[in-house]
């Protein structure tokens, strides 16, 4: 049996007013943004390093691909052993959920940067770090954005899974609470919030940027023809 939409809306209003829902949203978003920022930074760095250093690729490449097959929530027991019942443990799960997909996408994008861009830049005096910041990273941006978008989705899912299992505030905990109270309207209202937040931020962060970048970089045309 499902609760009617009116029951869900009523519960939404109730939890919003008594501050329970806003608190949970803020807790979850904070974790999401910190974890995602960490994995975006580390993922792009690691991806570029993997793409440009063949020895590193030989050493850790298979590990990266292998670990990506591991659902991020499987890191939770290890994280709890390492960090105890703390914020660090849940952040670790979020990072592990999104890091590798960003790494792999970045590596692919950087390796696909046409060598002619790099050669042209070298003839104009670009060297070392500036070759990365002015040519390689901008050239790889469309692929990196795809990875970032994927990473965002994974981070969101990992966070929810982590919060469901490990009770310490956040939207995931509200879901667990709803189940324990046997209150289906409560469960449904939290699910609605999770969907809205997930979709909303994805649109906000990537919607227009990705399209504009693909157009300007000439991918849109290549796909059309």
């Amino acid at each position, binding site marked *: 049996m499902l609760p009617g939409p009116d029951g869900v809306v009523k519960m939404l209003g109730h939890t919003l007013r008594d501050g329970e829902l806003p608190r949970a949203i803020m807790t979850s978003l904070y974790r999401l943004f910190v974890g995602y920022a960490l994995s975006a930074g580390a993922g792009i760095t690691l991806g570029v390093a993997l793409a440009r250093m063949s020895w590193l690729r030989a050493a850790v490449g298979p590990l990266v691909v292998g670990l990506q097959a591991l659902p991020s929530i499987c890191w939770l027991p290890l994280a709890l052993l390492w960090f105890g019942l703390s914020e660090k443990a849940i952040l670790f799960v979020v990072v592990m959920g999104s890091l590798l997909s960003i790494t792999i996408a970045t590596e692919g994008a950087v390796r696909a940067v046409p060598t002619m861009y790099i*050669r042209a830049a070298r003839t104009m005096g670009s060297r070392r770090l500036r070759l990365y910041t002015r040519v390689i990273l901008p050239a790889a941006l469309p692929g990196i954005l795809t990875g970032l978008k994927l990473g965002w989705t994974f981070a969101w899912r990992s966070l929810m899974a982590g919060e469901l299992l490990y009770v310490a505030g956040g939207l995931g905990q509200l879901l667990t609470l709803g189940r324990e109270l046997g209150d289906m309207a409560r469960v449904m209202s939290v699910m609605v919030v999770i969907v809205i937040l997930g979709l909303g931020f994805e649109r906000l962060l990537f919607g227009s940027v990705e399209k504009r970048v693909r157009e300007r970089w000439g991918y849109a045309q290549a796909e059309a023809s």
Partner: protein
Amino acid sequence: MIEVCRVGKKFQSTTRGVTAALRDMSLTVEDGEFVCLVGPSGCGKTTLLNLIGGLERPDDGEVRVHGKRVRGPGPDRGVMFQDAALFPWLSVAENVAFGMKELRLSRAVREARAKKYLDLVKMSGFAKAWVHELSGGMKQRVALARALALEPDILLMDEPFGALDPKSRDALQAEIVDIWQKTHKTIVFVTHDMAEAVRLGSRVIVLRARPARVACDVDLAARLPQPRHVDQAEVVELAAQLKGELDETGEHEAVDGDGHGDDDERPQATAASSSGAGRLVAWMGLHL
């Protein structure tokens, strides 16, 4: 002045082993010359250009520019490729200013020069356009402006008009000659199109393949004054004559070194007495 002194360059390929692209190659380009390097594909002309540009390093010998040994690419040598290689994340004007930013020139200088060279290549109306909005010919014009904007003494061009339609190619050929005459830059221009070489160069160097050797070196400055045109009788005639020269000097593009540099001398002895496919068979027989 560009001096190429007894330069050798080998390449490792997975299918063919080591191939000598250049061996014991020497040539000198004087300041202000417009030299066209022409030869069949795989004759090492692009390798030679990359060595001058510093994008590759020679295995033997050395390349000197203005008396100084080339150790890498530098803004004293502007390079244009067959692909314009413009950066799509930058506008046309930003592309032209790219190298000037690397040289840490001031914003005012960058903007003034970008405008000047976009004017020169007749692209001033497109300063704010994005790269994907341009046609192939327009992209090469911008690439030319980008190379010129660093004000190099030397311009190295690797089949820059090879992928263009005949009309754009014709227009750009006229313009590069015009720019050469105005700026007195030294230009080394690689092409496989003999007519293009004769139409453009003040000097044409015909290369023969693997390893590249100079088949002939013709000074055209006095013989054929600019402006020339590809359809002009003298140009057509001379191009045909040079092509003939290339065939006579033993063109065997299909025949490749099998990895032992020393063996490269042998086929030439065989080649002199046989022709075409027969020559190939004779040489392969020798190796089998």
